[in-house]
């Protein structure tokens, strides 16, 4: 009897090991080519998520995961080889390049879209337009009340992104001219959070990517509206490209290659436009009227 019990136990142990072995083998087969890990900017996030959803629907055996931890963290992930694609809403810094090369990683930039930095206020705020210098003075703390700008007598609540953000760095160089942002500024961790804060605070001002302006009011900057045309032509003063970085140029024919070149297809362009960004390509927009069998 006891021997039988021992036998079963041994069998049990053996099968557990076998199962583990199968798991490991399956994982090995699965691990590499069919997973794409995307990390980084919260501004590029909506594009990456749309691309991931689109690509996974077409390739049921591929798993693309997207997380939005900020441009700085995205760059770190690529440097440490913990992601395949790093979303950045700014270009990679020299220091990051050096760290990457020291780790044997060679960052290659793919510009996926153009984006304007919308300066936004609560829709109840009557102010419609500011000059770049005025925005700078607000964030420097020299203009403290909306009444100084022709608005109601309410203190200005300044909302900024955290320093890990690419959007923050764009703002710092294009708007602030690298002058210091006043210490009473409130820092938030994502585009969505900045929008929510401005949306719920009548006296707030903030800056977000073009995809995040629902429910808040975009201000005209130096008389120019942050439209797609103005961003693409460079007339809108606070515009920047959005990047996806990979380690080396991805091997042709791989899922990774298809993913980071998706923005060059007309479907990719449509997704970028619908998310509120400006595509780098200029195919004619998808025809609303279907011309039956013209082609």
């Amino acid at each position: 009897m006891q021997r039988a019990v021992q036998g079963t136990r041994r069998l049990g142990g053996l099968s557990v090991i076998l199962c583990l072995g199968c798991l490991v083998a399956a994982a090995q087969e699965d691990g590499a080519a069919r997973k794409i890990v995307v990390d980084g900017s919260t501004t590029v996030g909506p594009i990456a998520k749309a691309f991931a959803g689109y690509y996974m629907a077409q390739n049921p055996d591929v798993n693309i995961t997207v997380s939005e931890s900020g441009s700085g963290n995205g760059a770190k992930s690529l440097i440490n080889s913990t992601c395949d694609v790093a979303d950045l809403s700014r270009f990679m810094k020299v220091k990051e390049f050096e760290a990457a090369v020291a780790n044997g990683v060679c960052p290659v930039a793919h510009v996926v879209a153009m984006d304007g930095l919308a300066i936004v206020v609560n829709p109840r705020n009557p102010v419609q337009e500011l000059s770049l210098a005025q925005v700078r003075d607000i964030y420097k703390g020299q203009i403290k009340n909306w009444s100084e700008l022709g608005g109601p007598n309410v203190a200005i609540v300044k909302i900024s992104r955290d320093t890990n953000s690419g959007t923050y760095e764009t703002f710092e160089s294009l708007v602030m001219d690298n002058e210091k942002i006043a210490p009473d500024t409130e820092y938030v961790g994502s585009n969505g959070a900045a929008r929510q804060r401005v949306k719920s605070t009548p006296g707030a001002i903030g800056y977000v990517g073009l995809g995040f302006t629902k429910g808040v009011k975009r201000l005209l900057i130096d008389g120019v509206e942050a439209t797609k045309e103005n961003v693409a032509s460079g007339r809108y003063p606070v515009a920047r490209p959005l990047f996806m970085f990979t380690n080396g140029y991805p091997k042709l024919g791989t899922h990774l290659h298809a993913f980071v070149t998706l923005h060059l297809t007309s479907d990719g362009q449509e997704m970028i436009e619908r998310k509120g960004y400006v595509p780098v390509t200029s195919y004619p927009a998808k025809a609303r009227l279907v011309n039956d069998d013209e082609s």
Partner: protein
Amino acid sequence: MRLGTRKVVDRSFTGLGIFSIALVSLALVILLTPIVVRGIGAVVFRATIEHDRVLMEHFERGNASTFAARNATAIAARAPVYEMLTAYEAQYGVDDFELEELREALQRLLGPAPDQSKPTLARDQFGATRWAQAQEAAHNVLYVQEWDYSDPTQFGVPVDVPRAKRFAGTPLESLFPYVSEHLDEMLQPHWTLYWGFLLDDSLDAHMFGGIWAEILGTLYLTIGAVLFAVPMGIISAIYLVEYAPDHWLIGVLRSCISTLAGVPSIVFGLFGLAFFINTAQVSKYFMAADSTGVSSKSILAGSLTLAILILPVIIRAAEEAIRAVPRTYKEAALSVGAGKWRTILTVMLPAALPGILTGIVISMGRAAGETAPIIFTAAVSVGRPLEVWQTLTQPTPALPWSVYNLCTEHTAADEIRHVQYGMVLTLVVLVLLLNTAAIILRARVSRRLAG
């Protein structure tokens, strides 16, 4: 103390007790009511024909004949709207900003126009799927929100301007009364029980579909954490109770374990990132040697991090439970000639099992709900539900992280509040089930041991 004073003190103490219990119950009700009510709203709600369309096209579910009948009525009801649009375009041309805006508002309500090619994004392929959303979308078709800034010293006031005004005297003028009168026919509202909310994949970052990937991810992470933490925890507890000498070093070790229980969970998260992902690269162990895959976040790394988080709780619970076993059990076992190891394995541990199990299940509840440790080690905002073997190398969406992510980072956070509430309710119910399981298990094991 005089008897009278003692009575007064006694009564006021009782009163205070009742008061605090009432306060706690009130807080619970205030907290749980919206979670339960709005969470259930994610599953039981008034759906429109567009909801049925999502299910038919993407999940191949639903009663085809009912759908066809409803769809036919809806299409017939919508036809005049598109006829009016065509008539307007024939007269005024298509290059018109206000027409664009109206078409966009109509697309939000009814989905793409019949003469439109299929949009790429799922959120553009369908109209409003929930009746509450549909009413809001209809309002946006009928009115344009403008702001009255006539007094620049005050904040503006929202004004709803009827869109009909803009199109007065054109073929579109009658579109607006038509939409408000025939909304029901165009969208076919009906009560539905969308059980697929729990078992469907999400579509277009939670615009439609369910939260299966999140639920599965949370289950994997919890089970993984327990798999790692329980053996280690019990063995440590046995060592601490039965083998550890009475030495000051052991005292230090004990207080270290207690301290570990008080460390903020984000610290574990950062430790997991630095150690399991960057240094040990656990996600790479299970890839082929020539693999180009990166050492990304994975359920494995997340489970290991959560395991460290719950380890002190399990050690403490197991230690207490083993210590509580009567000395006589052990002495009896030893006196009939059992060795120390055998005594522990066959007498002490079974007797301590109820206590240990309670500790395990409580820590499972903690592991399921923790957010900070998985941010850097396992959780992502978009991803598929994983197969078991993929847990070794791939990250996953998980309930606690997705709740946070949806309300802070999602571009359409306000439109998908019901998904957030649904996720919160699911998580609360999951933890509640675990705790109930603990109570039942404990009662059963105790009864068996007693009998």
